[in-house]
């Protein structure tokens, strides 16, 4: 079927609810309204209010009750409506979701997914546009995925539903409806922890994910640079091998993400490249990211998010070294 990311995730949730009778979708407005982005549209009508649950408006207990449901033998797929609101659930995510397995030495596992729309570029109000992947990846114990296209979104969601691990599923709102793609109708899995080589090349490696994938692709195509583009798809666990293999081949590494520069995921990736491939590099590692401050109001977001011009300049810089 030809679908955008919203349709692909909706279809994945439908298939998961069909396959697993203990699976539920829960969150604010996910029922009759079908979610503020319509990601859960139609599921309430098909599965009813016991399985597509409009919860009270309280993020901490959306994640906290989902933890309890997972302990009780269910497979909850909880939605936090926006990345900023998800911080009210940070205690449940960091203190419980991430460490229940380790602190019980696997006596209790938490098979569950917490979905959240992330990143900006769609002119929303404050607190709707954060890119929090580093926050969740840093804790450990959480799988953090972020698809950049409909095919990966569906396959990663289905794969996540077959794991016995807690998954933070970040959905870039900018990409929800940006383009359509041919996606298989039935179940299929996209491997978690495996980066996608979007474009092969020899001149330099660009490591990116989420909203920055189309930005990087366009910049590279326009420049006719022979860059290798890696779409991480999974932030944690990191596909270090694919990154190192590519960097060793090209000798140049650039990381592009929408999250703020300082202490961002780019720092982690750059450090690993420095530790394991520094003598293969022809130029210093370069990071392209948003400013090191909280996400601005929508009137300023186009000055904040890295755009094609910024990526293009960075490509010139790294190739001139």
């Amino acid at each position: 079927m030809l679908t955008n990311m919203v349709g692909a995730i909706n279809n994945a949730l439908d298939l998961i609810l069909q396959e697993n009778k203990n699976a539920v979708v829960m969150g604010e407005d996910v029922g009759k309204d079908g979610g503020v982005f319509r990601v859960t549209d139609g599921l309430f009508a098909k599965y009813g209010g016991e399985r597509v649950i409009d919860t009270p408006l309280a993020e901490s207990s959306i994640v906290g009750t989902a933890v309890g449901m997972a302990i009780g033998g269910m497979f909850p797929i909880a939605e936090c409506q926006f990345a900023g609101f998800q911080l009210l659930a940070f205690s449940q995510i960091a203190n419980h979701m991430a460490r229940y397995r380790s602190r019980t030495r696997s006596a209790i596992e938490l098979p569950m997914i917490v979905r959240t729309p992330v990143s900006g570029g769609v002119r929303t109000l404050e607190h709707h546009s954060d890119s929090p992947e580093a926050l969740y990846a840093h804790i450990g114990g959480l799988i953090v995925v972020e698809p950049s296209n409909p095919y990966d979104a569906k396959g990663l969601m289905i794969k996540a539903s077959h794991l016995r691990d807690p998954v933070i599923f970040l959905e870039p709102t900018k990409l929800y409806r940006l383009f359509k793609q041919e996606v298989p109708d039935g179940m299929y899995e996209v491997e978690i922890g495996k980066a996608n080589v979007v474009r092969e090349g020899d001149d330099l490696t660009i490591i990116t994910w989420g909203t920055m994938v189309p930005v990087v692709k366009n910049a590279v195509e326009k420049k006719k640079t022979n860059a290798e583009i890696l779409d991480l798809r999974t932030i944690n666990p990191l596909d270090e091998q694919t990154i190192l293999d590519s960097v060793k081949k090209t000798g140049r590494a650039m990381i592009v993400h929408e999250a703020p520069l300082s202490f961002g995921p780019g720092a982690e990736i750059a450090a690993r490249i420095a530790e394991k491939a520094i003598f293969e590099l022809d130029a210093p590692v370069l990071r392209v990211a948003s400013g090191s401050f909280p996400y601005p109001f929508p009137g300023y977001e186009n000055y904040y998010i890295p755009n094609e011009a910024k990526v293009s300049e960075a490509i010139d810089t790294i190739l001139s070294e």
Partner: protein
Amino acid sequence: MKKRVFDGSIDYIQVMDENGNIDRELFPKDVDDQKIVQMYKLMSMARALDAKALSLQRQGRAVTYAPTLGQEGEMVGSALAMGKSDWFVPNFRQHPVFMVRGFPLDIGLLYWRGFEEGVLPKGFQATAVCVPVATQMPHAAGLAYAFKYRKTGASVVAYVGDGGTSEGDFYEALNFAGVMKAPMVAIIENNEWAISVPRSKQSAAQTLAQKAIAAGIAGVQVDGNDVIGVYKVVKDALANAQNGPTLIEVLTYRMSLHTTADDPTKYRDTQELAPWQARDPILRVRTYLTKNGLWDEAKEKEMAEGQLQAIDEAVEKAEQFKPDPGSMFRHVYSFMPQTLKDEFDAAVKSGYWQQPGSE
């Protein structure tokens, strides 16, 4: 126009008073003298275990420990009221509840020695000990929803302290359970103190049980040092749990420390303790049993010796435990990612595990 749109009230229950007298009207039908003897023995065991754990900590053989002295009545009473298929959701002071529900003593002691291996054996019907205050409450509500959804017939008994009722997660959980009519019984262990902050500074509400009213669920207050009273209200709440949740406030007192990292003489008047000593949960049951010819010095001695022996055996077993640092890496995910495996291999290779800092 003005009209009254809501009325609410909270009942207080006591079945056995501090002199061992029983309110026959409230006395639960399924409690007989044998059951009262069982309650007495379990409360005594909890107290003996508490003394031992405290002493191990003072000798450096356990990490920080949270004493249970004075709260044995509410814990034993509530634990005995649970049905076979029920689960409980503890905070960090529920070791007597674990004990009554059959948790192996030696495994429990491992937690206080500082090892994850002491948290939960697989299949035990409880969530893990929970240190961040009240964050366990949404788990209880979700677990109760799961039992309802899966039609298992089981209910969930959750514990939270008086300080915990100030947390958002406490109220969010009651609210969720109320809306979903989830089979949850939430017990507020009001022991008057949240470390150094008294109950009066946690809430202007006259009772903590009345917080149930805001969530639209049943609420009741009970003498927490009355093991039979607590047994009764928890049993009644569980009997009604399939229709919806109940909030129970048990009135008790933390006779000892918050944890071994704490010195209560700094913030509370020791004169507070005397009236609570008279209300001791074990003492009143002993008075009742002695008065009715069900207990004597010889029985006490025999019980105490048996309990100490069981505790000593558990301590010995727990102290034989050898930590396995590899377990830290193996239980992060259901699989070991390559990057984590690299860290694990490096740790094994370096040999620093062979020279741990101190223990």
